[in-house]
């Protein structure tokens, strides 16, 4: 039996059916990411587990116990919110001790626990500061420490890094993952950022319009997307209909499913290479966009625009409107379903 089990979860807000029969299992000690675009139901599912939203149909089990209708206060779940939600009238130490007070813990022990949690997030020297005196990153670390100091059964992170700048965000991703592994705490992380999901997760649950689109490890989701949506949302795949694919490669393949091609699997060169097990076709560079260490080309092939990524190196930049040869290994053309089954 899984540590957390969602069984046929349904939830609506008025006429808006947000969660449509979600079935999901999370193992003990695992970090599972709920990934998806805005409005797909990922935060609602998290809040259902937290007890902050009422489930209208279905059940939730935690450690073998049905908690579907258990009060949020009694679920022993820690949560970090997007807006930190620290208590402004309390110091950092008081914020952390707040959750321990209700457990009627002895003062000395409470002090020890608070110090240990602050040490874990590297904020020992800020114990007497008020939240208003801390930076966004520091506030988020306090929120994390406050959630874990009570030793909850599950830690929920609701887009905790979305209000933080890119550099600090990357550091915090690593830090959160490190702490999660150290404590071996079952964690559910919500984000709409696929890179963040890739970095942090043991498994990713991709949601779309209230349904699970795909569930798997970051590698499997990235390399083997099952649906058009999964291919489009993760990895910026080129997704095309069978007839479009035929037009692209200039031959008839009789494929029945849509085809997904990762931009980095398409090689660009000035001349044809005549490689085995590859499709090779000619195109014209429409534009190129630098994306960090990668240069993303948009290339027009027989009226179909596709993306192709190359490493950003000054000696291999192709000019706009220049003609190029593209080669694509046949095994990198993946069949994808229209929607999740």
């Amino acid at each position, binding site marked *: 039996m899984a540590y957390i089990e969602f069984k046929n979860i349904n939830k609506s807000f008025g006429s808006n059916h947000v969660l449509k029969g979600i079935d999901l299992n999370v193992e003990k000690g695992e970090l599972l990411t709920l990934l998806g675009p805005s409005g797909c139901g990922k935060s609602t599912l998290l809040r259902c587990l937290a007890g902050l939203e009422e489930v209208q149909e279905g059940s939730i089990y935690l450690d073998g116990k049905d908690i579907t209708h258990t009060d949020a206060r009694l679920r022993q779940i*820690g*949560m970090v919110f997007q807006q930190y*939600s620290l208590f402004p009238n309390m110091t950092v130490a008081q914020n952390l001790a*707040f*959750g321990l007070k209700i457990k009627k813990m002895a003062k000395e022990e409470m002090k020890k626990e608070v110090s240990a949690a602050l040490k874990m997030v590297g904020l020992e020297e800020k114990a007497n500061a008020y939240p208003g005196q801390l930076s966004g990153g520091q506030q988020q670390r306090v*929120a994390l420490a406050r959630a874990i100091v009570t030793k909850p059964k599950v830690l929920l992170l609701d887009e905790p890094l979305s209000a933080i700048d890119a550099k600090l965000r990357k550091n915090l991703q690593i830090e959160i993952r490190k702490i999660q592994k150290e404590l071996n705490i079952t964690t559910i992380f919500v984000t709409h950022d696929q890179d963040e999901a890739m970095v942090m997760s043991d498994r990713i649950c991709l949601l779309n319009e209230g349904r699970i689109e795909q569930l798997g490890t970051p590698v499997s989701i990235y390399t083997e997307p099952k649906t058009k949506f999964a291919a489009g949302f993760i990895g910026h795949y080129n997704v095309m209909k069978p007839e479009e694919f035929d037009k692209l490669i200039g031959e008839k393949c009789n494929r029945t499913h849509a085809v997904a091609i990762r931009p980095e699997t398409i090689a660009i060169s000035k001349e044809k290479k005549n490689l085995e097990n590859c499709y090779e076709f000619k195109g014209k560079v429409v534009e190129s966009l630098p994306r960090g260490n990668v240069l993303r080309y948009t290339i027009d092939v027989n009226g179909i625009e596709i993306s192709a990524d190359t490493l950003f190196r000054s000696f291999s930049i192709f000019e706009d409107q220049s003609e190029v040869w593209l080669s694509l290994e046949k095994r990198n053309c993946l069949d994808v379903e229209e929607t999740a089954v």
Partner: protein
Amino acid sequence: MKEHKVLKTIWKVCVAVFLLMPLVVTLIYSFSERWINIIPEGFTLEYYVKTLTNTTFLMGIVRGMVTALIPVLITNISVLLALYVVIVYLQNMEKVVQLFCLIPSTINGIIVATSVLGTYAGSDTVFSNRIFMLVMIYCVFIMPVTYQGIRNSLYAVNTAGILEAAEMLGYRKFHSYVTIVIPTILPGLCNSALMSFAGLFGDFAIIKIIAASQWETAQAYLYRNRSTDAQELSAAVVILLLITLVINYAVHKSQNDKKGVRAE
């Protein structure tokens, strides 16, 4: 640039003189023995001694404070509770609550007083009690300012988020509302309460209509004696002004001290 600065300063001084002139003249008048010509003559504390030994006036101050304080407390508590319910349970009722709370701002206080008097004065219920009537009218009168002040403060501190965070740590929402949210918004709460208190303490129009014969406040006393000794009245006005200033100062100081402790 310098010329611009000078003009600004002159403008500020003019406005300050215009605003302060009546107060300064009242102050000088209350200390002078006579003021028949342009310059006042002599210096005396006689009018202050007279005013401060006048039990009717002193009781008026106490009555004024009581009738200002009770409605401020009732309205603040009511709005805090109503907004708690709105934020936690009935988010879509916010517009309705807002409408009800802001309606009184569109109606003149004297019209409300006259209407209430006409409706309840003859009835043999608790509503016909003039002091009860006065307190309730004051409650309605300060509702818009109180509601807007508290609402803005509550939304500024992300009340819903704080309550949910506390709930996840094992606390009941109402407990967290009282122990975390209300202390956090206290400076804003005090400011709106102070504005309401000052407005009610200075009222003489509504009280004159409703209960001046039974419950004479300092303002009503001033109004009743407006044609008697003007210098004694000036002393009374200065005393009332000082009381208001002291209350203002005390509230602001207590809030600043709290902020100071937090900053340390």
